């Protein structure tokens, strides 16, 4: 996945998301989920299926509880449980749908390289603003999350309590969220100055630092993904 063209992963993930909703449940999403897990293992994204299952586990549990156990017309027995046949089938389809989408996204994200994406976007002639927004955001998120820890430790030295009743927690929330918001606005000012200095609005086409190869395998994978979506739409409309 890491060697693939930066547009291939996101493109295939969107195609899988659409297929998960287009294919008839429960068989369609179940086959799709199986295929996505297999593809993730083959392409080297070994942790994606496991991590995806961990994310989906609470959702699967609630789907089974809400539709299987508490669903209408419990006519099917599983041990001491009476289950709704229709609700269980629906829960299974929805669970496989979520599993396929989450696993595909995680596999894509594991192989997503920010610098390669910027190069590929420049090569395609995307306006710099679009790639800046995506890349700056991806880089800002982990920095802000770690900033939360710094602010929390600083506020704890001033007496911040993380436990207690809701009023105490509310005060603590204010003590953490407001410095973070002010810090965010100060950072936005610095970035604005940097963007202005670098002539962000200059009407010139930017050149990529490295040329990203769009191999035949990448083009074929994207073509197959989107052809499957078109075929599924035609099939569902015809049936």
């Amino acid at each position, binding site marked *: 996945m890491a060697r693939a063209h930066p547009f291939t992963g996101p493109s295939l993930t969107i195609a899988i*998301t659409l297929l998960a909703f287009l294919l008839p449940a429960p068989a369609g999403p179940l086959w799709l989920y199986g295929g996505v897990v297999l593809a993730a293992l083959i392409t080297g994204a070994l942790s994606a299926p496991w991590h995806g299952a961990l994310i989906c586990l609470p959702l699967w549990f609630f789907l089974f509880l809400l539709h299987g156990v508490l669903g209408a017309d419990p006519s099917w027995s599983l041990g001491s449980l009476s289950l709704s046949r229709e609700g269980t089938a629906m829960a299974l389809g929805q669970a496989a749908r979520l599993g396929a989408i989450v696993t595909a996204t995680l596999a894509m994200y594991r192989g997503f390289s920010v610098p390669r994406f910027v190069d590929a976007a420049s090569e395609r002639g995307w306006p710099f603003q679009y790639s800046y927004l995506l890349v700056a955001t991806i880089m800002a998120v982990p920095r802000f999350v770690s900033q939360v820890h710094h602010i929390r430790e600083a506020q704890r030295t001033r007496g911040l309590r993380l436990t207690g009743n809701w009023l105490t927690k509310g005060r603590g929330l*204010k003590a953490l*969220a407001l410095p973070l918001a002010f810090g*965010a606005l100060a950072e936005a000012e610095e970035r604005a100055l940097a963007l202005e200095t670098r002539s962000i609005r200059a009407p010139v086409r930017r050149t990529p630092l490295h040329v990203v190869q769009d191999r035949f395998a990448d083009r074929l994978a994207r073509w197959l993904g989107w052809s499957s979506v078109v075929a599924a739409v035609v099939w569902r409309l015809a049936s």
Partner: protein
Amino acid sequence: MSPRQLALIPVAVALNVAVGRIVAEFNLPVYLDATGTILASALAGPVVGVTTGVLSQVITAMIGGYVWLAFAPVQIIIALLALAGARARMFRSLPVSLGLGASVGVVAGALSAVISYFVFRGVTAGGVTAITTLLTSTGLPLSVAVTASSLATDIVDKSIAFAIVGMALRGLPLRMVARFPEAGRAIRS
């Protein structure tokens, strides 16, 4: 889009995610994942607010699954209502911000309920789904349970988020307020 507006979007999206982490540390039953969207909208107008909301969903979807992109319309509606509230000077005091947040919570909750019911069959994030399950077990139809749980959580969530943004806007240095004309109008009493 001006460089200032462009620079504000990534930090506002990061704020959405980071405030969500703070809430998780306090074990509070809310998300506050639209705080940055509300702030961006109140400071810099509709384009920045809506872009922040949509990009926020895209980034969350990239990390946790494209399936959550379905909630992007909720972020858009929050951004637009926050802007309308800012233009109506509804961030001028804590009670007014809380009232605005509760009203936005009703709209956002209703829209979330529709998406949650039709796309996710009522099963989304842990807290809301637990309430939905509890209500369904009492015999309520799924559609009613999903609507009630979405409304209840969103009203509380958006009230707190709008209160925080209101406090942030009122606490801004005048030098900063001058750079964002929408903010000046939002807090004028």
